[in-house]
């Protein structure tokens, strides 16, 4: 496939690795933000091929993993109701809530349907006028345009039986929160390519400046990731910091204005809790008052449902780059993709699941 295969070329990757080896002289900690990048890094063994000076830590870039427990509990409360068709991206169905996950609600008779696009949920609302169709709108800036469009269209068509549980999160505030933490180890970021596709990268310049960290919007294939790493390593070695776009084939400085317009039409910035991390001010998106009729949390009155996160799961530390999955005492033991205790084990892009899937648990179990 064009625009994919060439970025998987082993010879180019090898040359990039050589370049990185030639450039690096000191130890550096680099965080890749996006779970898609984490998955690609672990799958291709990039972290193991890099010179030992470079440590990759895995960022909070899996929206499934950071959706707070109470949002899952709120979704479950709605999904259990009569007359509701609850729709969601597949990944969310197995994320454990306090007592159960959405799949369990389904096995108990709940009408829960997996969708690939939010427009499918909208179609269900049109086809089932006597039912309430609710869509679990989670994701980063990448997913927000689609989720916003479904809501915008519902309002345009006057579809009163469609609503969204919105738990959207924004990446730059989380990047800043990690950098301002006293425990921070991150010295450079590979920014999430597809988030930047939508939002552009202008907002990263002040972050690079304030915290003196190189930030490189990066794609997802091995060649992309190695180029991203080379870009930040070059800057780190020279003591420079700026925003250097590696993913220019899909990302422009201003992002996608048509997508931003619809996002801003229906959603507004709000404070948001991140699973395992806690509340980060102005790091989420909520439905604007103007569209309150399409806000499932209000419609079904579930906003009061709160939840405490379980103690044994250290995914919060993993999502902040402070620990690696094998350091979790239950990793690969009582916590596996079949029986996940935390969200980072559920999603294919969660660091725990990626380590498990690509056999990184063998070493951990030997210890």
């Amino acid at each position, binding site marked *: 496939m064009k625009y994919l295969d060439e970025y998987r*070329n082993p010879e180019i990757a090898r040359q990039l690795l050589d370049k990185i080896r030639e450039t690096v002289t000191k130890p550096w900690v680099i965080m890749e933000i996006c779970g898609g990048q984490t998955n690609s890094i672990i799958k291709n063994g*990039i972290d193991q091929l890099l010179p030992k000076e470079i440590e990759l830590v895995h960022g909070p870039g899996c929206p499934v993993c950071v959706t707070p427990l109470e949002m899952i509990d709120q979704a479950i409360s709605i999904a259990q109701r009569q007359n509701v068709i609850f729709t969601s*991206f597949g990944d969310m169905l197995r994320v454990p809530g306090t007592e159960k996950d959405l799949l369990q609600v389904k096995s108990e008779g709940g009408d829960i349907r997996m969708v690939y696009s939010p427009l499918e949920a909208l179609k269900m609302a049109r086809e089932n006028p006597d039912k309430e169709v609710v869509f679990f709108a989670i994701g980063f800036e990448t997913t927000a345009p689609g989720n916003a469009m479904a809501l915008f269209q519902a309002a345009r068509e006057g579809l009163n039986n469609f609503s969204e549980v919105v738990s959207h999160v924004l990446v730059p505030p989380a990047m800043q929160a990690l950098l301002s933490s006293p425990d921070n180890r991150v010295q450079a970021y590979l920014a999430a390519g597809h988030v930047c596709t939508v939002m552009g990268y202008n907002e990263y310049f002040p972050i690079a400046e304030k915290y003196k960290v190189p930030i490189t919007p990066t794609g997802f294939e091995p060649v992309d990731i190695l180029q991203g790493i080379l870009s930040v390593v070059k800057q780190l070695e020279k003591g420079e910091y700026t925003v250097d776009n590696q993913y220019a084939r899909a990302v422009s400085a201003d992002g996608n204005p*048509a997508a931003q317009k619809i996002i801003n039409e229906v959603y507004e910035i709000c404070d948001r809790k991140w699973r395992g991390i806690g509340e980060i001010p102005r790091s989420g998106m909520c439905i604007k008052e103007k569209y309150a009729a399409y806000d499932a949390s209000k419609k079904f009155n579930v906003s009061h449902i709160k939840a405490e996160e379980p103690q044994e799961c250290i995914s919060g530390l993993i999502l902040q780059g402070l620990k690696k999955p094998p350091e979790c005492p239950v990793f690969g033991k009582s916590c596996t993709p079949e029986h996940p205790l935390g969200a980072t084990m559920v999603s294919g892009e969660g660091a725990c699941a990626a380590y498990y899937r690509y056999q990184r648990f063998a070493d951990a179990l030997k210890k």
Partner: protein
Amino acid sequence: MCLAVPGKVVKIYEEGGLKMGEIDYSGTINSVCLEYVPEVETGQYVIVHAGFAISILDEKEAQKVFETWDEALDKAREQGFTIENNPLADINKK
């Protein structure tokens, strides 16, 4: 979650007031919403995420990345490397 894949726009149409298109991903055809790439034309490649095209791939920018690597590519072909999804970990063995 933010997984998004490139595909080629093979047909553009309208449905329910939205600009839609058929996208070819190496033989698999899917319908996606094209509202966020209003200027797109058939034959162009887009990045698709959760049923929405979010960007038109920039041929020139994509090319730039490889200019320095063209020579390497030729060498790779000579040596019989496949330009396929070879896990990088394998290259050490070669």
